[in-house]
């Protein structure tokens, strides 16, 4: 155990932890988005999919068991990811207590500059999103019906400012992933073959998946507002 603690204390080890937890969260977000595309197949298909999540692993796992294991794993990944992000930020702040009068970025991109605050917005979004569609208290959802996710989905997104918040949060997530999905390869020491002459496939990977996730997720509130899904 002690080597894990020591590893996590080093800035390199901490970034490995961030990369692995970030990768796990990315995997979840991707599957989550693809799964939600079922909403375009109508209420039956969508509710059947949502119910099906609870019976995955049957008969090895009982009703909802695997889902809970996944939830615990995700919670762990979020906690670890955020702790590492927080710690990393602390260490870096302490490394330059007296700042410059002026420091200009040369090639740092907007996505890179917003990793921290963008991450915080994504976190707030996750919390709200859980209240909105999973727990459904009155303040978060106007008419939450347990067991009818299609209804909750449509009614939930009909509130325009809720939809707007979802869209903003997805744009933040997209920026986060545009840098993060490239950065994680750096953190894990995975580089393109120097001499392949094909450029950096990690950039292509990061930009494409960031785009796919943002477009997929943004389509949901837009489809409800436009009346395509009702």
């Amino acid at each position, binding site marked *: 155990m002690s080597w894990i603690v020591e590893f996590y204390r080093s*800035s390199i080890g901490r970034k490995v932890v961030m990369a692995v937890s970030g990768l796990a969260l990315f995997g979840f977000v991707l599957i989550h988005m693809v799964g939600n595309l079922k909403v375009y197949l109508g209420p039956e298909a969508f509710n059947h999919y949502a119910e099906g999540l609870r019976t995955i692993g049957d008969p090895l796992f009982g009703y909802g068991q695997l889902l809970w294991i996944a939830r615990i794993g995700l919670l762990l990944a979020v906690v670890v990811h955020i702790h590492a992000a927080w710690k990393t930020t602390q260490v870096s702040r302490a*490394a330059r207590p007296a700042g*410059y009068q*002026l420091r200009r970025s040369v*090639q*740092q991109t907007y996505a890179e500059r917003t990793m921290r605050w963008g991450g915080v917005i994504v976190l707030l979004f996750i919390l709200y999103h859980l209240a909105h569609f999973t727990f459904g208290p009155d303040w978060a959802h106007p008419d939450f019906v347990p067991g009818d996710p299609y209804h909750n989905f449509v009614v939930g997104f009909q509130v325009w400012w809720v939809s707007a918040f979802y869209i903003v949060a997805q744009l933040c997530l997209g920026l986060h992933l545009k840098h993060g999905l490239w950065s994680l390869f750096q953190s894990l020491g995975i*580089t393109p073959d*120097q001499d392949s002459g094909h450029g950096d496939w990690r950039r292509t990977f990061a930009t494409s998946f960031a785009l796919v996730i943002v477009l997929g997720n943004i389509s949901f509130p837009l489809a409800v507002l436009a009346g395509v899904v009702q």
Partner: protein
Amino acid sequence: MHLTLKIWRQSSPEDAGQLVTYEMPDVSEHMSFLEMLDVLNERLTEQGEDPVSFDHDCREGICGMCGLMINGSAHGPRAATTTCQLHMREFEDGETILIEPWRAEAFPVVKDLVVDRSSFDRIIQVGGYVSVNTGSAPDANALPIGKEVANRAMDAAACIGCGACVAQCPNGAAQLFTSAKIAHLALLPQGQPERQRRTQRMVEQMEQEAFGSCSNFRECEAVCPKEIDVGFIAMMNREYLRAKLS
């Protein structure tokens, strides 16, 4: 050309320090940046004032002593150029130039624009060498090394340890420097026997100095006068992981 300089003046490590403005009415665009400061210092000396302290040695871009934060970027506006190799033609007549020292907890200001970079020396001291008796110079090509590997090792070995990477990094991290020093030895046959131990010790020393944590923002490679790229940082991460897991 006429320039206005705003220079960080700090009489000692304890002094709070401040920006002081100097007018430079007659600067030749052919001067190097350091020659321009020489002119200022001559004038200050004649006036009985304390000249501005700044580090320099070779003035040909190979020793790594010079290094100033010029208008918010390390070594000034020109890519792949040390401060001593920067010329005044990069600036406009009438421009105001802000000159600050490298700022990092691990690089404390000694005086004015001079910082103490011995944290870099300590990283080298724990492993940035090959501890075998090398005797006299070996015959050329006695030890075959592939061209790509030799090129890559040379890219890393070009590091002059100026500290611009740390100075420019939003996180004050020293990953580019440390990785270059680890990589040029890890790539060559001479570096193999101590490869894992070297990586571990140099990384751990880097962690102990008050450097920040790399976020892969790539600002370091953008200002590196020797154009060392962040691919070496990935390589260091890989080397460190391998050393830790084996």
